[in-house]
Structures are given as C-alpha cells and as structure tokens.
C-alpha cells in the first residue's frame, strides 16, 4: 500500500496527537448535569449506589473510546490517500500529447454528435488529441497509473504519476497549443525517465506525427528500448491545405539607417493552387500589398526595398482567398499566415572625439551619417562632457578616470590604460583575430603594417580581438554595462587608416557600443532559446508575449535567456536598469518559421526502425486502488454504531 496524499510522517503525527487527545478527553471526568431529587435512596435501589464508579461501567465506556479512536484513525489515514499497490499486470502509461503549432490545424475529428461536414464543427487536432487522451484516461485499468506530458517546445510533465483520473483529465483539459515546433526528443526522454523502473511502461504519443523521419527515429527509437510506445494519430478529418510565411526579415541600410528593406518568403503546402494576398503592415497600416498565386509546393520570395517610416512594428500577412464556391479559405493553419518583426528606432550616436588632431580618425567619423561627432582637445576633456555623449574616442589620451560611457582608446599609454600594458612589440603582425566578436565582423587585418604596438594584459572577461603571436594588441571589454575597446598602436604609425578595414573597424566598434548587431533586425524564431539583450544594470527582464503571459528571466552577462512559444510581439521591461543604460530593445518579435509545422504533416501511422507503432489499448479491470472512500464509509458506519450505542446507553 502506498500513500499518495499526506505523508506517512504527517498523518502518523496527526494520528498520535489526535489519539492522545481523545484518550485524554476520555480519561477526564465526565461533566454531568446536576439534578436535585427528593429521594436519592430510591435511585440507589434501582441503579446501585456505585454503578457509575464501577469497573464494569468503565469497561463499557472503553468500547466507546475504541470506536472513537477507530473513527479518528480512519479519517486521518484517508487523508493520506492510501492506495493499494498496482498489480503486476498494471501498466504505467505516459500520455505524450502534442501541442506543437501544427496541432492548430483545423482537421480534427468532430465531437460525437457534431456534423463533421459543417464549418462550425471544425475541431483542431489538439481538441481531438485531448479527447483521445481523456478517453485513454477513462479507459485506464484499475491497476494502471498514468502521467500527462505536454509535447511543446519545452516538454514538461503536467501531472505526477498516479491513478487519479480527475487530476489527469484536468491536466489534459488545460493543454494548449503553442506557436512553435515541439521538442519530441525531449518529450520522449521525459516520458522514458518517468517510466523507468515502473511496471509495464507504456508511452502513448498522441500527435499528428508531423515530424520528419530522422527526428522520429532519433526520439522514439531510444524510448522503445525501455517502454512499449504506442501511437494515436489525430487529424485528417478533412483535407489540409495550407500556405505559410516561412521567412520574414527586416534590415536597415548600413549607409542610410533611416530606411530599411524587407524580405518575405511565402510557401504553399497545399495540393491545389492557392491565391493569396500578401500584405506588409506597419503599425497597423498596410504599406504594401501584392497578390500571389502559389502553386502546390511553390516558394515565393519578395523583397521590398527602400521602405521608410517611424513605426517599429512590422507585420507580414498572407491572406488566402476562398476557392470558387467555398465559403472559407482552404488555409487550415492560421498561425503561420502572419509574421512579425521589430524595427528599432534609430538615433544618431553621439561621439566625443578627444584628440590633438588626427585627420584619419576625424575623417572616418565624419563620413558616418549615423554619428554626431564633437571634437575636443585633451585639455578640454572632462567627465561631465563625456557623460553627455554615448561614446568617447580617446586618441593618444588617457583621462585620469575612466570615462562614464563607452570608450575607444587609441594607443593608450601610462597607468590610465584600460588594459595594463605589458611592453611593446616592434613590427607586429596580426596573427590571431577573434572572428566571432562583433568588432571583427568583415574585418581583415592579416597584412597590416604596424611600426610598434603596446601589448595588453587582459583580465577576466576581456577579449583579445587582434593579437600578434598571442600578444593582444586590440582588446575589448564589456563589463558593468560599459564597453571599452583599445587599439595598442598609433594609427599614424600603421597603414590601417589606408585600409578598408579601418572604417569597418570603427563602425563595428561604434555599433557594438550602440548595442546593435550590424543593423540587421531579425525576429526570433519561436521554440528556440534566445538571449535577449538587457540594458546596463538590469538584473531581470520581464517578457510579456502576445497572449499576455509574462515570463521573468534573470539577466546573465547582459542577456536574459528566453524561449518564445507564441508568435507575435514581445514587450520587454527591465528591472534595475540604469538611466541611459544602452539601447536594449523593449520590443522584440517572435515568429513561427518552421516549414515542418507549416506543412501540417499528417501521419496516420508511425514506423520506427521498421516497426509500426500500435494503437493504445484500454486497461484491464481490477481492484479499486483508492482506499479513502472505503475508509470514510467505514468511519461513517462506525459513527452510526457509536451514535446508536450512545443513545441506547450501551457505551455510557
């Protein structure tokens, strides 16, 4: 017997304390009502003078005590929800219910009693899956136990392993689809883990089977080694025709960041041609419309250049036309007909150039239309002036205190260098470049000629962007919300200003300072972990998705991990951010861009390792395992006995 409710220790304690209380009350002298009678001798003659004090009398009351203790024990033990152990024939079933985006396809079987052909009777695959799961729960044998696992981007058990049908049904009823691909591999592993060591482990996958063969084999084959894997297909009640937006990208032009261009990719997964209208919407207003006719399986890519506008919310919509004679469009999966992107507002970066005069630097900075450059001689520099800018470029000058904003040091000398100097290198060659660092994007420094360069000593977290024989000569640091880049050589003592790499390095540096990844504003795919950039000083990001669900994520190294499960715009707010802490986005977009989901593939059968997965079966009847109803019934019966014996004065 097991206890599924209160722990053994808890109700054992309750039993001991309550039992002691009852016994104490039993031992206490009964408080009797007092009556004055005219002739107590007559009562003595009838009852006997010492009847109430007699041992026999007390023994009779002992029966009452025992009954009360038994009632109390039954009630307390029933709180522990005692259950008989499952019989050897009992199964342990993991119900893995698919919640992926394709389960939103409206080709689920109609409910009993509904007319399947009517539009109003359209059911999603998930609804059919939930109904199938509920039927399986109701069909569990008395010795069976089950667990419900939601198959979405983050598969998690929705119940504990148990036989409580009400809890299982409640968990099934609460399942919702997500706008993301499902992690079938994770779900099968979770199911296998839950069933490990259990009797007759059975995994029932309730899904549309919309996974490619490799994913199925990778996820299901290992699970089949330890469990009997069954498959219950859903969907297919009507033909599925679908067209989807499979890509949506927006980027600003590098040269003119006030303009941007958009890339949209639409694809047909239908068996018939689909006529549709492709719309581009900015802040709720349609800015581009184009009619498309998608042949079966055709992919159409459209680029919309030179778009301008202040709005930040961009949305692409694919609106399929209803076929001739039909009331509704063929599109069975609305979720992939929309894609979202955020165009962050672009402002000019204010740069303070501190130099005695450097035409190379001044020229490169002045050519960038996205910069507002102020120039000042080293003598005119102070921290307050620097604080009014977004970044400082220090050319051969090291201020007594580190600037309060992002800083680019060119040939820093002395103790004020952000990176301690470890000597000089004559005629260094750039032998190592940190290609993954934003500063090194599109950068080539291989044949750079430098007369001399300082060697930097790096601290924890510092990055050697360029090194000469592992001696850092260009270093970067991102710490406490402030970014620092240092070039270990004088530009005029190198041929860098004469190279293409020079303006690229400057732009990369300043864009890194600005928090922009090169001007590309991509929306995030749903179902994949992303790392949202946080403003300086933020300790936590709160992300509210299109459904209004808010998720809080801690900020680690300036970024917060997040996994979007719903397509749409995500509002991001930070906790603890400093004023002017950077250009972290407060709005991001998430899109379902999975062709596998958009395909809404349907597999009536699953074949893994050459074996076709069988359909799930009902459980066998057995002995009811939950004992609490019996205990409560027995306690009530004893209560009646106690009541009767008390009123009949048997136990008093």
């Amino acid at each position, binding site marked *: 017997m097991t206890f599924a409710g209160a722990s053994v220790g808890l109700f054992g304690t309750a039993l001991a304390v309550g039992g002691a209380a009852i016994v104490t009350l039993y031992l206490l002298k*009964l408080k*009797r*009502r*007092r*009556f*004055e*009678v*005219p*002739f*107590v*001798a*007559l*009562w*003595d*003659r*009838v*009852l006997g*003078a010492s*009847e*109430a*004090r007699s041992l026999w*009398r007390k023994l009779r009351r002992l029966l009452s005590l025992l009954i009360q203790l038994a009632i109390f024990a039954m009630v307390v033990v029933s709180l522990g929800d005692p259950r008989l152990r499952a019989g050897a024939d009992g199964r342990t079933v993991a119900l893995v219910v698919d919640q992926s985006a394709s389960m939103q396809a409206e080709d689920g079987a109609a409910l009993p009693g509904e007319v399947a052909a009517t539009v109003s009777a359209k059911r999603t695959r998930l609804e059919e899956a939930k109904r199938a799961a509920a039927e399986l729960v109701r069909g569990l044998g008395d010795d069976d136990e089950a667990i419900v696992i939601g198959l979405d981007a983050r598969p998690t058990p929705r119940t504990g392993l148990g036989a409580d049908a009400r809890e299982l049904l409640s968990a099934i009823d609460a399942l919702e689809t997500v706008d993301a691909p499902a992690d079938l591999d994770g779900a099968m592993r979770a199911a296998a883990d839950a069933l490990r060591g259990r009797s007759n482990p059975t995994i029932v996958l309730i899904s549309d089977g919309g996974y490619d063969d490799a994913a199925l084999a990778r996820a299901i084959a290992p699970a089949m080694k330890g469990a009997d894997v069954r498959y219950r297909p859903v969907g297919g009640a009507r033909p599925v025709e679908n067209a989807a937006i499979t890509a949506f990208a927006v980027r600003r032009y590098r040269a003119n960041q006030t303009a941007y261009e958009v890339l949209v990719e639409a694809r047909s997964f239908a068996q018939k041609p689909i006529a549709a209208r492709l719309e581009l919407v900015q802040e709720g207003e349609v800015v581009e419309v184009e009619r498309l006719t998608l042949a079966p399986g055709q992919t159409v890519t459209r680029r919309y250049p030179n778009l301008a506008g202040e709005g930040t919310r961009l949305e692409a919509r694919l609106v399929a036309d209803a076929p001739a004679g039909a009331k509704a469009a063929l599109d069975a999966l609305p979720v992939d007909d929309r894609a979202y992107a955020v165009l962050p507002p672009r402002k000019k970066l204010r740069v303070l150039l501190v130099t005695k005069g450097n035409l190379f630097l001044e020229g490169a900075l002045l050519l960038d239309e996205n910069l507002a450059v102020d120039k000042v001689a080293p003598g005119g520099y102070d921290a307050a002036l620097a604080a009014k800018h977004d970044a400082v470029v220090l050319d051969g000058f090291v201020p007594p205190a580190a600037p309060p904003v992002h800083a680019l040091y060119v040939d820093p000398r002395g103790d004020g260098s952000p990176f301690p100097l470890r000597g000089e290198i004559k005629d260094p060659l750039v032998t190592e470049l940190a290609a993954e660092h934003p500063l090194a994007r599109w950068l080539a420094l291989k044949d750079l000629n430098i007369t001399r360069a300082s060697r930097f000593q790096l601290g924890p977290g510092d990055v050697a962007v360029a090194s000469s024989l592992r001696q850092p000569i260009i270093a970067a640091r991102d710490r406490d919300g402030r970014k620092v880049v240092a070039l270990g050589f004088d530009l005029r003592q190198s041929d860098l200003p004469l190279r293409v790499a020079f303006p690229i390095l400057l732009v990369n540096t300043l864009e890194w300072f600005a928090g922009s990844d090169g001007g590309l504003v991509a929306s995030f795919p749903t179902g994949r972990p992303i790392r949202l950039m946080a403003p300086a000083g933020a300790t936590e990001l709160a992300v509210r998705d299109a459904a209004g669900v808010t998720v809080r994520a801690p900020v680690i190294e300036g970024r917060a991990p997040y996994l979007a499960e719903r397509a749409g715009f995500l509002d991001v707010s930070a906790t603890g951010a400093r004023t002017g802490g950077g250009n972290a986005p407060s709005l991001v977009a998430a899109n379902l861009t999975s062709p596998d989901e958009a395909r809404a593939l349907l597999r009536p059968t699953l074949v893994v390792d050459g074996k076709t997965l069988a359909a799930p079966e009902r459980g066998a009847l057995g002995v009811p395992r939950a004992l609490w109803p019996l205990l409560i019934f027995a306690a009530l019966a004893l209560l009646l006995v106690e009541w009767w014996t008390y009123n*009949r*004065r048997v136990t*008093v």
Partner: protein
Amino acid sequence: MSSVRFSQEFLTKLEYLYVVSRKVFAGKMRGERRTKKVGAGVEFADHRNYTAGDDLRYLDWAVYGRLERLLIRLFEEEEDLHIYLLVDGSASMRQNGKLDYAVTVAAALAYIGLAKLDRVSVVPLGLDVDGRARPRLPPSRGRGNIWKVLGFLEALEGSGPTALVKSIEGFVHATKRRGLAVVLSDFYDLDGPAAALDLLRFHRFEPTVLQIWSAKEARPDLRGDVELVDAETGERRDVTITERALAAYMRAHAALTNDLAAYCASHGVGYFKADTNVPFDELLLRMLREGGFLS
C-alpha cells in the same frame, strides 16, 4: 393577608368548602360516629336503669309514671374532636410544589375543622438542624383562629430530613388527647411510613394518610449522564439513566406508593393520593365525600 400561599381566592374557596362540608355531614356523617361518650349534654341519647348514687335530676319521671321503672336519661356528652395536621416539612417536600400543596390542603382542613368547633393543631414533621422536633401549633378552636393557623402554615419551610418515625414518636408521646391525625407527606422513606403509622395507631390516634404525590417525581424527565443530589441529605450520585433504568425507577416509585396504599387499606387507615396536579379543592371534596374523616 399578604400571603403568597393563601390568597383571597384561596380564602373564598375555604368558605365554599366549609358550606359544602356542612351539606355533606348533614346528610351522611351523623350516624357514622356512634361511639360518642354519653354524659353531660343537651341532646338525649338513651336510657339506662337507675343505680344507687345516680343523679336524681336525670331520672325520667315520665317513664316512671307510665312504666313504674326508674330509668336515668342519658345525654350525648359534647366532646371536642382533636384534629392533628401532621405536615411534612422536610426538604424533599420543597420540590415540585409539594409543600405548598400540602400546606394548602392542611389550611383547608384546618378551616373546616375550626369552623366545626373542632380543636385543630398543626404539627410539622421533620427535624430541625439540631435534630430536634420542630415546634407545633397548639390546638385551636373556632374560625377566629384560622389566621393563626394560616400564619403558622405559611411559616413552614422545606428543610432537613423527614425522619417520619422519630417525628411521630415525639408527637405521640407529647400529645395526651387522642384524635384524628392527618399525615400530609410524600412518604419518601423506604421503611418509615408503616412504622410511623403503626405508632399512631398503637397510641389510639385515628391516622389518615395524604400522600403528596408529584407526577414529575413518579416519571422524572432524566436521561443520560447526570449527577443526582438528594434534596434532604445532599448526597450525590453519578449515574447514567437509561430507558431501562428509568423504567425501573418508575416501577420502584409506583411500588412505594402502592405499598403505602396497601398498608393503609389493610389497617383501616384512610389513604388519599394527593396529586399536585389536581386542584386542592377537588381533592378535599373527594376526601369529604369518600373518606368521611371529619365529623
């Protein structure tokens, strides 16, 4: 009179009872008391032969003239009837209005007796706190003494033990004149009533029993775990009263009453069960009609 027990309505009832009693005795009671002493009086009773020494004033000369026999005329001697009202004043009588009922009945009997020029004395049964007999009301005669009797009765309080035998023993030894002894009590004594009544009978009193009986005591409404406290002795009993025990008590109570009634019947003692639920005047009328203990 500002008495609680004896209201104006009560006094009016006494008058009514007195009138009724006169009617009853006029038609029924005259011949029932033939044991009167013959002697000085005004009412002729009988003749007897003259013997030497008889008072010649009572010689019936008319008979001598006709029959030439010397006969002495005998007259009924007018003798006072002593009525002793023995009222139980123990603590048990305080319950369920028994003492009030007994006092009321005693007052009515006293009024009727006084009005008929009998000598009425009230004797409280029971012992005081010192274990001594309580003071009695000396015999009174005439309706004028009714206030004295009522005042005495009103002062009676239910307290102390009954001690029937001891009380009556004191009564019979302290009373020279025999007469009617009306005992008003609940007779809650397992073996006392017979002995007490025997005492009265053996000392040539004419006892009449009025058992003050309460239905609440005969059929008490007690159930469950209770503590019983004796009204007289203060003794306590922790008992559990079941239906069975209650039935046994009721049988025992009925047996107590029946034993008393059987004793009275077997010894020619007048017995009346005075149910406190029955109006006292109804009881008295029944006593007068059926018992005939008043002359």
